[in-house]
């Protein structure tokens, strides 16, 4: 259901889009600089203008495509899963933050430079467009507003964004949480699952906690002691188990049987114990492995 213009739902979706635009903004200036650095000055100016124009055009095209794609059955679920991965990746610190993987070498011609910039922006903008599409709840107006906000960020706002997130790193955390919330919202709106969710309302809570536990794992993993680190895997695994048992019970039409309840609430315990034992064994084996002999470097 699309929110009414300037209603609380509309303003909330717009806020989510602005936040997503901020935290998922790509570094186009760096890409353009890397691509065009070996070109003559005159061509560089043309590359900057047409590269920016091409990036905006590709972003607009992808935004329109996302609106139609998310309407197809199954794509909301896929989009939700992709958003969980995007949120997790957003919160995971990257070691080499200066290099860009999208650009391998500087371009030698105007056409090659333009092609590289457009492809790099398309690759970098997929997550942004998907997240905006999810937050816009099918409203083309919100998509257009999201695009209108992301374009100035692409063209002029990079330093502003960097200064904002450097001063308030919690904006990135909040962005991750909003992405996870958007992922939950579009997964439960999936037409293929709507009937099933209506019949199994309690699974919505399990799905929500599962999505948050996977998407925000880098955050709470950083706060856990080394002994508690297995929780990062165990918590989502137990929630997947609960969902799996519910799906199996509805597929085989099993309801309220003692055996089923025992499997649902206790069945994961042996698996978790086996995994913890195996993890410990592998850890011990790596600890006792003899170090490779030292080679002297002359």
């Amino acid at each position, binding site marked *: 259901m699309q929110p009414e213009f300037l209603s*609380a*739902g509309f*303003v*909330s*979706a717009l*806020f*989510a889009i602005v936040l997503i635009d901020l*935290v*998922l*903004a*790509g*570094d186009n200036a*760096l*890409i353009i600089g890397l691509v065009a650095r070996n070109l003559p000055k005159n061509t560089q100016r043309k590359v900057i203008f047409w590269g920016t124009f091409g990036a905006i055009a590709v972003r607009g095209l992808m935004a329109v495509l996302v609106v139609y794609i998310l309407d197809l059955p199954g794509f909301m679920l896929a989009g939700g899963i992709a958003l969980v991965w995007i949120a997790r990746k*957003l*919160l995971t*610190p*990257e070691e080499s*933050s200066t*290099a*860009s*993987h*999208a650009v391998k070498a500087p371009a030698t011609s105007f056409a090659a430079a333009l092609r590289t910039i457009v492809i790099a922006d398309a690759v*970098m903008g997929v997550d942004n467009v998907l997240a905006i599409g999810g937050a816009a709840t099918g409203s083309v107006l919100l998509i257009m507003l999201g695009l209108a906000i992301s374009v100035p960020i692409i063209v002029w706002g*990079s330093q502003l*964004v*960097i200064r904002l*997130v*450097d001063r*308030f*790193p*919690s*904006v*990135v*955390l*909040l962005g991750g*949480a*909003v992405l*996870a*919330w958007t992922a*939950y919202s579009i997964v*439960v709106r999936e037409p293929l699952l709507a009937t099933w969710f209506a019949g199994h*309302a*309690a*699974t*919505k*809570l399990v*799905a*929500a*906690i599962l999505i*948050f536990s996977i998407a*925000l794992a*880098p*955050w709470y*993993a*950083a706060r856990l002691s080394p002994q508690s680190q297995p929780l990062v895997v165990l918590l989502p695994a137990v929630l997947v188990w609960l969902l799996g048992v519910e799906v199996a019970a509805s597929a085989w039409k099993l309801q309220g049987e003692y055996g089923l309840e025992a499997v649902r609430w206790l069945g994961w315990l042996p698996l978790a114990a086996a995994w913890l034992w195996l993890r410990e064994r592998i850890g011990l084996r790596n600890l006792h492995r003899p170090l490779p002999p030292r080679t002297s470097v002359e």
Partner: protein
Amino acid sequence: MLLIRRSPRANATVRTVSAGGELFVAAVVICMILASFGDAIDPAMFGEAGLEFAIFDLGGEFSVLAMRDWHLLQLLLAGAVLALGISVLRVGSAAIVKALRPAARRVLSKVPI
């Protein structure tokens, strides 16, 4: 590459985030999970204004069942209020614990009784 990767603080946000910012986002996440809890409950399960009212309706709008319809801004506001409440409780309880803790025997502030 994302713009946030250009800032070392934002890149490692899970380690560099301030305690207040972290508390606020954690409170927002709790509100989001509560909203999904409200979404997961079938109101018909409890009958009309029966057990539902007794358990979940803590005063009209501010109930878990009502939270299912909350938008992001409402969740952010609720998260801010929750974080503020937790901070006040933390400061207040720390002050009470400090007042209850006896001073060392020979310290100057020790009141002779």
